[in-house]
């Protein structure tokens, strides 16, 4: 522990190192390779390497804290890193053709995704405020750029600048909270912060201020109401593949960070943050779902739906028991599969001269392309949480956790919200199955999109029918960490 660096520590950060190396390889390869789509394949190889290192770490049961307690390698972080890698890989798969259509296929795109994913992986492993924050910023800055990647598209530019300004502001608030925590504990390590906080009275104004500023910063990152305003704009303006990436990986990383900080560092203040979080949770679920009803742009609709999903996931933290904590990584993994599936279909709608973002663009999809309509139906059912899809299992665990810990009112509101969400998900379904096609051009399915769809549908149904392996894995991840 006292050693700042040992040679084994390299092994502890091998998956992250792999991402950084491949990111740099991509930057150089961009100059040499003319056909940019090949760079996407290099990026996928990098993600594969990183994933294999991750598996290797798990197989050898490396449970270490490295770099003098700056980060830990445990099943919890491994589970989240797996989600990030999966989200990154699937997003790259759906980008390959899409970027050609948008005429913005550059090598930096893939490099930035890898760097952002590296930042997320450090966020999931960090047990120290400094490491956490640097990882967070690496992810955030790369994402700001990716959102504005369609340089000739005004909406993309606008989305990027909005996201950047608000993101920088929220990072400032988050840092203020972190500096207060350092001020009262004299340490940046989560465990020592928790110790210092538990020595102070519960209603100590300074610790409360630190907690509230931290909460505000993190609510921004997960797009919880009332810090959600950037989400619809950023999600709408960003390239669709990046919207997919943000809605799964960035969200998962923010939750990984939130679970670590709230269940370890400021756990002593739990009686104080649970009520705040409960209010935010109700607001997020309700406002996200109600605002989604009125949207006619699919990307905005899904943005509001993703806001409401963040609200459901907060239930897990509010419950804070084993079921709740198990539910968080599980929900995020299932959400990754389901959401990438939905976005893959939206990406396929984008073809030359057709933007394909309006709900009307979905009309008659069933008659034009029955398979994708049926796939979309299954994904939407999963998002709404209807059995036998995976989304049901995810929601079941969260709601069960809320009831187990006596948050019955919250559970009822959550179920009501799930019912509201069925309405707007089915608006898309109605358009697909019951309306005439207005647009005759077929969809563009590239091999990448097809692969992503295949993986997504396979796991959405498989987990829905046979969730045991996933539950065991998630339970193992959480029990050992907390």
């Amino acid at each position: 522990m006292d050693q700042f660096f040992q040679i084994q520590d390299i092994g502890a950060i091998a998956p992250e190192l792999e991402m950084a190396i491949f990111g740099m390889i991509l930057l150089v390869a961009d100059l040499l390779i003319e056909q940019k789509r090949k760079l996407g394949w290099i990026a996928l190889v990098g993600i594969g390497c990183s994933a294999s290192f991750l598996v290797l770490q798990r197989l050898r049961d490396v449970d270490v804290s490295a770099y003098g307690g700056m980060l830990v390698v445990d099943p919890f972080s491994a589970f989240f890193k797996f989600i990030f890698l999966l989200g990154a890989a699937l997003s790259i798969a759906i980008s390959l053709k899409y970027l050609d259509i948008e005429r913005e296929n550059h090598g930096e795109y893939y490099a930035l995704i890898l760097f952002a994913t590296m930042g997320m992986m450090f966020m999931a492993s960090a047990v120290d405020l400094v490491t956490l924050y640097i990882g967070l910023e690496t992810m955030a800055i790369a994402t700001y750029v990716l959102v504005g990647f369609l340089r000739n598209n005004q909406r993309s530019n606008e989305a990027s600048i909005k996201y950047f300004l608000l993101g920088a502001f929220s990072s400032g608030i988050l840092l203020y909270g972190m500096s207060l925590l350092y001020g009262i504990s004299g340490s940046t390590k989560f465990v020592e912060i928790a110790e210092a906080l538990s020595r102070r009275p519960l209603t100590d104004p300074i610790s409360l201020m630190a907690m509230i500023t931290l909460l505000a910063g993190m609510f921004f990152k997960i797009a919880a109401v009332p810090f959600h305003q950037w989400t619809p704009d950023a999600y709408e303006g960003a390239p669709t593949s990046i919207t997919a990436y943000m809605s799964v990986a960035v969200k998962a990383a923010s939750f990984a960070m939130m679970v670590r900080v709230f269940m370890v560092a400021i756990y002593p203040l739990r009686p104080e943050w649970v009520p705040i979080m409960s209010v935010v949770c109700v607001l997020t679920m309700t406002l996200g779902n109600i605002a989604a009803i009125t949207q006619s742009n699919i990307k905005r609709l899904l943005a509001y739906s993703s806001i409401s999903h963040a609200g459901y996931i907060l239930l897990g933290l509010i419950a804070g028991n084993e079921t709740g904590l198990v539910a968080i990584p599980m929900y995020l993994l299932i959400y990754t599969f389901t959401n990438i599936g939905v976005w893959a279909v939206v990406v396929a709608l984008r073809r030359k001269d057709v933007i394909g973002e309006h709900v009307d663009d979905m009309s008659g999809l069933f008659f034009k392309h029955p398979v994708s309509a049926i796939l979309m139906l299954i994904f939407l059912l999963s998002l709404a949480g209807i059995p036998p899809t995976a989304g049901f299992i995810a929601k079941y665990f969260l709601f069960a956790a809320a009831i187990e810990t006596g948050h019955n009112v919250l559970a009822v509101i959550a179920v009501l919200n799930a019912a509201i969400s069925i309405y707007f998900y089915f608006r898309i379904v109605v358009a697909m199955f019951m309306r005439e096609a207005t647009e005759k051009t077929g969809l563009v399915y590239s091999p990448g999109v097809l692969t992503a769809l295949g993986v997504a549908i396979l796991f959405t149904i498989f987990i829905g029918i046979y969730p045991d392996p996933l539950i065991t894995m998630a339970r193992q991840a959480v029990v050992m960490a907390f």
Partner: protein
Amino acid sequence: MLELALFYIFGTIAVVSAILVITQHNVVHSAIFLAGTLLSVAGIFLALNAEFLAGVQVIVYVGGILVLFVFVIMLIAVERSTFERQFNRQWKIALITSAILIGELVYVVYQGRDTFVLAEPAVPLVQGAAGNSQQVGMGLYTTYLLPFEIASILLLVAIVGAVVLAKKKTQTE
């Protein structure tokens, strides 16, 4: 006592010039007041015995970033931008919300003034070091080695990102 006096002097200069930065119409004036803010923050660092940080503040922020600002201002037409309408129509709401926020912060800090005793920082890494540059250096390369290394990737991302967003269309597009 002297420390406290210095803090109030530098603090006042910093806040007043920060307000002037955002209220001036002429960008050159804003830039000059920004220099005032940054320099007085460096003064606060100095009063807190953080010489290294004060030096970095002057060299990087005033010497580097601010000079870049001035270069950019030189390249754009300042005269015209002075007369253009600036879109800050929501300044009243912003003023009210920030006043509320400041009120809250002041109240909370005032309430917690007895318990807000800063914890002792960890043991100095280098005993009897000449200045705190050595302390900072030791900190960066021992305790905070990992974040220090990740920061290099962070900077790379920022550079690549800036180039991506700023570069002109290439021929192939």
